[in-house]
């Protein structure tokens, strides 16, 4: 972004990569897949790079409001400093913070989750999926992340993207507003689960495997990690893949 600013240019959209997308090796693949699509379509986008910071989501949900407010203050100062209007992100937690929680603190942006963004690109004909691509005839199930689904009521856009593939979409028993959490939210990602009978991600992965799908589509880097672990726990990692919708699109253009 600093480069755009130095040249006096404005990007069409700021891509908010998020911590997982920046540092987690698995999630980096989602980041690269999404930027490949953006490059292919020819969208002028920027990233904040080293200036990007955690939105503060895990701190806020763990109860550390003070740390959240510090992160929010700094991020909003950076974004407003560059005059950012439009943000796209590959993480529903970042999306929720931008859409719902930064406005009260002076950060007002048009924000899109990457699945909605991809759906619009497909609908506008800017992204054309190859006929009989990598997913032709495969059974796919889709996992609603809590913060995209229940949190913000976005259930259809990711499904529309999946329907653009020539595949069979099989819903899990618990889907849409009744979808079950992967176990990562509320800062659980960063700590061991409390004692219990099983792990939440094991339970959710089992529900996904019950559909008989060979691909579990996700929209959140944390869900992707959790479900991948859950699939491994059932020793199904050779036959069943957990993929972000952006990775699936990138493979098919």
């Amino acid at each position, binding site marked *: 972004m600093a480069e755009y600013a130095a040249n006096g240019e404005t990007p069409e959209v700021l891509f908010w*990569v998020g*911590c997982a*997308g*920046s*540092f*987690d090796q698995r999630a*980096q693949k989602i*980041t*690269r897949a999404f930027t490949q699509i953006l490059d292919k379509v020819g969208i002028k986008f920027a*990233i904040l*790079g*080293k200036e*990007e*910071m*955690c939105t*503060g989501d*895990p*701190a806020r*949900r*763990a*109860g*550390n*409001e*003070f*740390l959240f*407010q*510090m992160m929010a*203050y700094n991020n909003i100062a950076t974004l407003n400093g560059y005059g950012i209007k439009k943000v796209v992100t590959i993480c529903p937690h970042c999306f*929720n913070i931008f859409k*719902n*929680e930064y406005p*009260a603190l002076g950060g007002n942006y048009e924000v899109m989750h990457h699945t909605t963004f991809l759906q619009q690109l497909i609908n506008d004909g800017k992204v054309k999926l190859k006929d009989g691509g990598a997913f032709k005839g495969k059974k796919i199930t889709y996992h609603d992340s*809590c913060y995209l689904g*229940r*949190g*913000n009521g976005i259930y259809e856009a990711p499904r529309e993207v999946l329907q653009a593939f020539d595949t069979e979409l099989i819903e899990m028993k*618990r889907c849409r507003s*009744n*979808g*079950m*959490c992967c*176990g*990562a*939210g*509320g*800062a*659980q990602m*960063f*700590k*061991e*689960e*409390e*004692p*219990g*009978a*099983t*792990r*939440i991600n*094991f*339970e959710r992965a089992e529900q996904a495997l019950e559909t008989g799908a060979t691909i579990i589509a996700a929209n959140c880097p944390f869900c992707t990690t959790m479900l991948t672990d859950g699939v491994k726990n059932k020793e199904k990692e050779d036959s069943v893949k957990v993929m972000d919708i952006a990775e699936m699109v990138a493979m098919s253009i």
Partner: protein
Amino acid sequence: MHLVQQILFIILAVTAIYLFSKKVIEMRRNILLGRDEDLNDNKGQRWKNMVLLALGQKKMFKRPTPAILHLFVYAGFIIINVEILEIFLDGALGMHRLFAPMLGGLYAFLIGFFEILAALVLIGCVIFLIRRNITKVKRLTMKELDGWPRNDANLILVTEVILMSLFLIMNTADQALQGQVGAEHYSTTDPFWITAHFKNIFSGLSVPALIAIERVCWWLHIIGVFAFLNYLPYSKHFHILLAFPNAYYSKLMPQGEMKNMPVIQNEVLYMMEPDKAPPTPTEPAEHKNFGAKDVTDLSWKNLLDAYSCTECGRCTSVCPANMTGKKLSPRKIMMDTRDRLEEVGNNINTNKEFKPDGKQLINDYITVEELRACTSCQACVEECPVMIDPLSIIIQLRRSLVMDDSNAPQEWNLMFGNIENNMAPWKFSSDDRDAWVNG
């Protein structure tokens, strides 16, 4: 004789209404012990929520079987209250079936309709009893319901079965009495839809015996109604009233959004931009906890939620933590909040003002382990038919743990430290944030 009955009835009615009002005023006082929160915006949407969710029971229909049974009981309860109006006026004025001569043929139609509803309520309650006690639906038989909550649920259902039975027996006796010599004040109506078919079961009985049956049922029914009215505020069944305000005042923002804490927002602002801080340090406000330790730190809406909960357990049945054997149960969060609030209320009743009792909501009612298990997935919030928000309470208690008590698991402290120092929850250098480009 009539006069004695009339006087007894009026004493009974006045006492029942007085005691009920007293308890309701006390509950209102308890709810207002909560933090102030302005929820009067967007009235149009709020009325719509109340009509759709409370009156229309929109969310109940996600689970059709209990929804239909509940609709029987609910519709019966509301509509039969019209008949209670007649019973009340009869009692107060010393009349019998006051509306019968006025309404003519319509009267038997209405009573017939009420009888059908009463029968449906009866069937609904019997099936509910079976679900709780014989088929043992999981969410209705969990451990947190042991003791009083389970008895409360059964007592409500049994009371409704008894009340409806009394109503139907009373009408049957009335049908048998009509037109008989010695029962002239039992005005003649068209046959009631259900009880007219059963009046022969009383065929061998004398007129005084029938009158006795009719009167005893009438009295037991109305005594039961008044007793039930006064039982409501002590029971989970109070949801029949509070569902309405609770739906009205429910959260209008997206479910994913957490409420801001302006106090801390300003604290950070003054730290970053000291020139924006108020020039003269204002008098240090009375210490308020960050987040909530006890019910009085919660918002009044959280407390209204607690009184509105009917312990149906839909929230707990979808909670990912609970499903996988963790201690957290959103229903228990609401039950604990109500129990603690009642305790604080009783403390105020006894001591005129709250006398510290060395207890609080955290630890004494809700354990840290329960709070730590929440993934903030909002499934409980989505599921609640009367728009209770257990997550809001969980988050406020977490805030207090972390900010007031510095009580966080070691892994979270590391995460906080990483965010503060590396701008990410993991221990990576912020210089590497764009390293994925080279991957």
